[in-house]
């Protein structure tokens, strides 16, 4: 490949990565608004985005808090959802070959989008470029828009007036949606809903959601089906 082609490829990767980064970062506004509506302060909301930096886990943590769950159950739910980033990391480790401080910093950026924009590249340089540009763009956007959403949400007063309590369910559904194309996943989702709603009247808040993880355990052990855990759903999570 000539130098000029290499440059065109690199420009394309940067452009696509920035596009994904900006589009994803904007979701931060919904997280910020929902988080303060769930009872976190603006500062707690922003620290969560800076430190946790993985959307589904953050929505889960504030969602469990909002439904009256204990801080411990909210943290466990967030951590369980965070395990998929470990699998992305396993896949990225060989592709990126990061060592020392770069690995320490890069780890923070291991999320759905940065993985999707780097694992399929033809060269290590291209993979690294896609990973860093996407990761940093999402990080900057996600945290800026989290702040914007949190400040706006705090001005609104009672979140129920604006339906923000209803927005939480919609956000979870939108995160789940791409995975529901798989029939096997549909069964697991239905079983998880049954377990969670069945436990709502009898268990402490937060426990029904955690118990639903048992469905994943059971289904994973009982079924024999080749799946690629790092296969990314289209869109986001």
């Amino acid at each position, binding site marked *: 490949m000539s130098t000029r082609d290499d440059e065109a490829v690199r420009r394309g990767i940067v452009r696509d990565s920035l596009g994904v980064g900006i589009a994803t970062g904007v979701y931060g506004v919904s997280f910020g608004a929902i988080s303060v509506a769930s009872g976190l302060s603006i500062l707690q909301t922003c620290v969560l985005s800076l430190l946790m930096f993985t959307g589904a886990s953050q929505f889960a943590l504030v969602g469990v808090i909002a439904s009256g769950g204990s*801080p411990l159950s909210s943290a466990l739910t*967030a951590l369980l959802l965070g395990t998929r980033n470990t699998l992305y990391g396993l896949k990225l480790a060989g592709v990126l070959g990061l060592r020392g401080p770069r690995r320490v910093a890069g780890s923070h950026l291991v999320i759905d989008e940065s993985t999707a924009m780097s694992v399929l590249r033809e060269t290590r340089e291209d993979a690294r470029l896609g990973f860093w540009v996407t990761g940093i763009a999402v990080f900057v956007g996600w945290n800026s828009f989290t702040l914007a959403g949190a400040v706006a949400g705090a001005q609104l007063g009672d979140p129920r007036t604006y339906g923000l*309590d209803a927005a939480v369910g919609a956000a979870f559904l939108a995160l789940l949606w791409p995975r529901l194309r798989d029939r096997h996943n549909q069964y697991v989702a239905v079983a998880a809903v049954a377990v969670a709603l069945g436990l709502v009247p009898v268990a402490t808040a937060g426990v029904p959601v955690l*118990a639903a993880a048992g469905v994943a355990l059971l289904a994973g052990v009982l079924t024999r089906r080749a799946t690629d*855990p790092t296969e990314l759903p289209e869109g986001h999570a």
Partner: protein
Amino acid sequence: MSALWLTVLGAGLGCYLLKLAGLSIPPQVLDHPIVSRIADLIPVALLAALVSVQVFSSGPHLTLDARAAALGLAVVLLLLRAPFLVVVFGSALFAALLRLL
């Protein structure tokens, strides 16, 4: 320090360590089909449970209210391939309007 702050800091650090582990541990350690399948299914089960608890319960009670209607709209918007923010804030607005009626 409040329990909520401890949760934010602890869970945040935990999620970082999960990412660091992925880039650091030898791939063989988790290279088992059952581990992969469970890890693949955990987000599905948890997100489905979160949707249902968030929409159909208030405390220990199962409920059916404006949130359920908003979820219905979310399904329609997702089927129409609407962007994430349209789905989230569209549902919120719909619930708010229903409550005004």
